[in-house]
């Protein structure tokens, strides 16, 4: 059973990561590089980590960093692959409990993943270009994880709960993180122009939407496909 989950997640992650890397390379990464030119120009010496944004974090100047160009693209592709396989593992795990009836149902799972891991967190912490002032990193990460987790529970209750009261509880849980509010910096400021930030937000939200729909659709298709030979006795080789 775990093999089926792993196979589904591995292949889905690979395909979705390739798609994401392609979209990023043409659309998102150029905006990040442009953002970095503003970041590096006025404050070459002041790295954003040096502001004490990370508690207990000492920026190590010697840490490896990919060179711009192919090294950076490959490194990002690797990052995408790990994240995509991770998300696909979560989807395939859910499929073992509730098998999608069609690959199209996987698209709905993908959209749910998009709502949980992109839409809900970005309501409080929008996608940011390098050089944007933000609150303490750990605080933001905690809010991000809390928001994603509560949105997942909330959606599950709203969609699957039988009793109306549980659906109402789901709706309340959905709103709570946004009532609490994401950690915000004392003063908002960004080095990149507003128009570039706005463009980056749209690019990030749309590429992630495509990524999640692809992830849901491919994972459901592969998960259902891997079950086919075992449930059709006539096709068992049995030799």
């Amino acid at each position, binding site marked *: *059973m*775990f093999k089926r*989950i*792993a196979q589904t*997640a591995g292949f889905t992650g690979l395909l979705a990561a390739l798609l994401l890397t392609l979209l*990023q390379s043409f659309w*998102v*990464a150029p905006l*990040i590089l442009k953002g970095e030119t503003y970041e590096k120009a006025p404050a070459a010496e002041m790295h954003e*980590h040096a502001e004490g*944004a*990370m508690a207990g974090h000492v*920026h*190590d100047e010697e*840490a*490896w*960093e*990919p060179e711009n160009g192919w090294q950076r693209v490959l*490194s*990002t592709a*690797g*990052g995408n692959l*790990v*994240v995509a*396989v*991770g*998300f*696909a*593992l*979560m989807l*395939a*795990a859910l499929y*073992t*409990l509730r098998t999608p009836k069609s690959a199209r149902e996987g698209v709905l799972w993908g959209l749910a993943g998009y709502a949980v*891991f*992109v839409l809900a*967190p*970005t309501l409080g*912490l*929008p996608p*940011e*270009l*390098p050089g*944007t002032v*933000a609150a303490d*990193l750990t605080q933001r*990460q905690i809010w*991000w*994880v809390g928001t994603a987790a509560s949105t997942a529970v909330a959606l599950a209750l709203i969609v699957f709960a039988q009793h109306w009261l549980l659906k109402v509880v789901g709706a309340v849980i959905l709103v709570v993180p946004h009532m609490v509010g994401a950690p915000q910096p004392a003063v908002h400021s960004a080095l990149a122009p507003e128009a570039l930030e706005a463009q980056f937000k749209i690019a*990030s*939200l749309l*590429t*992630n939407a495509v990524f999640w729909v692809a992830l849901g659709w491919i994972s459901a298709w592969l998960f259902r496909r891997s*079950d086919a030979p*075992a*449930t059709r*006795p006539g096709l*068992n080789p*049995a*030799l």
Partner: protein
Amino acid sequence: MSISTPHQTSGTTITTVVTATLSQRLVAAVSAMFLGAFLVYFAGFSHIDAVHNAAHDTRHSSAFPCH
């Protein structure tokens, strides 16, 4: 070496797949869920400098808190 008849073999296979109990499925699902969360955490949230630098564009693009 024991030889099982074709009928037995296919019967066993089907039984294993169909009657995977709920607890077995739960264990597989929860472990896969944890493994998946760990992978996302490692690439997207880890404070290790080299990992941050390598997955920098992934983090910004996915709207994970980065800096």
